[in-house]
């Protein structure tokens, strides 16, 4: 994780100054502004944020499923955003995506074998018996049985469907997988199975992964690095452990404190935010979080806070972060006393 504007050597993917605007009937939505981060090879980067934060858009832009409005995404030394449609097709093999909705992400009219097979066919990875074998192998890898290839998606439960989606992504042996809320539509008891599968695969195959989620505990558990988005801007990013242990941005703090913990005795020093997320059509000036920030001051409305490094690989976009950190330090000491 780095804030350098140059691509990081250890990064498989470096996103720089990603911008995305959507024209809508009632104006332009700034879905992403100046988003830069690195995804380290073999690591899992978590992108967290609430609805409207742009986390899903970011994932789609990297894969060019949505055309970005600006910036670059250097994947293994090549800017994906500059590739022609044809060149991109070859790169598609190396980057894959897993979707949130296990229902709409599988074509209901195709057999599971064909869904996975399509990936194999498109990149001419295997034919005939080899192809079938490969499908069986992939199904086995995600915990399904070979005979499932003949069935249609609707014959499976949500968790099983998500496994099929993972098998499809794995079929082309990608290096990077973008997982867009892969477990949030699943029942709690099934979520853990899929999370386990994903991290097993990640470890076994040495995959690099971008994990997009609104579930902070899942991200904390799964990810090595974390990017916190709010209204299309990065609020804070850094190694997951550090950010969770020592959140420096007021928004990160709020977010973490808002997560309900399944422990009735847990201490809840919750910061309740006022108001709602502003409309991305008309985002606040300066710091986009200032309208809800308990620590906002006049200056927050005037300048877009720059990213400041607070430690190695940990950066925060808050003009008051140092000041607030000092205060907290003081309070903590007081508490200790």
């Amino acid at each position, binding site marked *: 994780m780095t804030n350098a504007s140059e691509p990081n050597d250890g990064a498989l993917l470096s996103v720089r100054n990603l911008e995305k605007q959507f024209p809508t009937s009632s104006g332009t939505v700034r879905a992403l502004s100046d988003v830069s981060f690195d995804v380290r090879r073999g690591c899992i980067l978590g992108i967290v944020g609430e609805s409207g934060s742009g986390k899903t858009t970011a994932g789609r832009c990297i894969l060019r499923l949505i055309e970005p409005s600006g910036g670059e995404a250097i994947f293994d030394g090549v800017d994906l955003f500059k590739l022609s449609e044809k060149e991109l097709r070859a790169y598609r*093999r190396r980057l894959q*995506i897993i979707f949130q909705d296990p229902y709409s*992400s599988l074509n209901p*009219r195709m057999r599971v074998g064909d869904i996975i097979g399509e990936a194999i066919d*498109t990149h001419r990875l295997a034919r005939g018996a080899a192809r079938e074998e490969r499908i069986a192998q992939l199904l086995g890898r995600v915990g399904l049985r070979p005979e499932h290839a003949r069935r249609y998606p*609707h014959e499976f439960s949500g968790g099983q469907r998500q496994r099929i989606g993972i098998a499809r992504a794995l079929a082309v042996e990608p290096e990077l997988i973008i997982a867009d809320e892969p477990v949030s539509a699943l029942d709690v008891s099934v979520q853990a199975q899929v999370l386990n599968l994903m991290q097993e695969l990640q470890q076994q195959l040495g995959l690099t992964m971008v994990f997009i989620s609104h579930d902070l505990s899942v991200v904390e558990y799964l990810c090595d690095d974390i990017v916190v988005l709010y209204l299309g801007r990065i609020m804070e990013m850094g190694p997951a452990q550090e950010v969770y242990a020592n959140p420096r941005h007021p928004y990160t703090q709020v977010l973490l404190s808002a997560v309900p913990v399944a422990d009735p005795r847990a201490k809840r020093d919750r910061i309740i935010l006022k108001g709602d997320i502003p409309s991305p059509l008309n985002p606040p000036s300066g710091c986009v979080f200032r309208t809800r920030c308990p620590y906002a001051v006049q200056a927050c409305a005037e300048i877009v806070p720059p990213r400041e490094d607070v430690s190695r690989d940990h950066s925060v976009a808050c003009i008051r972060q140092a000041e607030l950190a000092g205060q907290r330090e003081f309070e903590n000491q007081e508490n200790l006393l």
Partner: protein
Amino acid sequence: MAVTSSPAIAGRPGLVSLVFQRKSLLIGLVVLGAITVFAVLAPLIAPYAPNRLSVVNRLQPPSGRWWFGTDEFGRDIFSRTIYAGQLSLLVGAAATLLAAAIGITLGLVAGFFRKADGIVARIIDAMMAFPDILLAISLVAALGPSLATVIVALGIVYAPRLARIVRASTLIIRELPYIEAARALGVPTWRIMLRHVLRNLVSPILVQATFIFAYAMLAEASLSFLGVGVSPEVPTWGTMIAAGRQYVGSADWMTLFPGIAIVLAVLSLQLVGDGLRDLLDPRLRKDL
């Protein structure tokens, strides 16, 4: 209200039993099948040649000899009704196929390519602004009346309906994750259109095509009735009613039987269409 929130209904009953569960679909299929069989086998079934004149026997009421009576030329209305079924069904089917060919192509193109969409969607909208019969009449007037032009005109008239449905569905499907997944895999656009989009449109297209079939048959009858359709000596149910119009009140059977034939054919098609919609639309099936 999602009552049984279990997403996967275990086991899928076979198609046949699904059909049998839907009485109306079954009735529709049986009636439609019977009409088709009668029409196709008309040469075997018809007691008389459809054009055989027998002037001495003109305008005979239905009897054991002429089940549906005879027309003003003494032709057997029963024989003519089943022969007319051939052409009425042919016009309906051919117009539907043509409408489907045009409509699906336009709809897919419009739904898939944003640039083409502006123009195609506008043309679809504009075509929909013409009442079907009126547009058909005008087209037939422009092309000259004949069996072929009626088919072409009706094909053109109903194409926008399919195009609109295909376009709307394509616009929705295009945004679905499984399309994104295919794009992420690098599947070429044309294959996405055929494999992912069109294949998922089979049900709505089939359902709509059934209705268009029904409408096209009604429209053909209307055109023939107005005297701007198929030429009057060609027996279709429409031309038979048109010919019988002069004898309403004196030889009602001339209009009655072809009229019943139309109603039955159109009704059975609608039953089938409705039944298919029930059967194929998973949203409705879930509620059942």
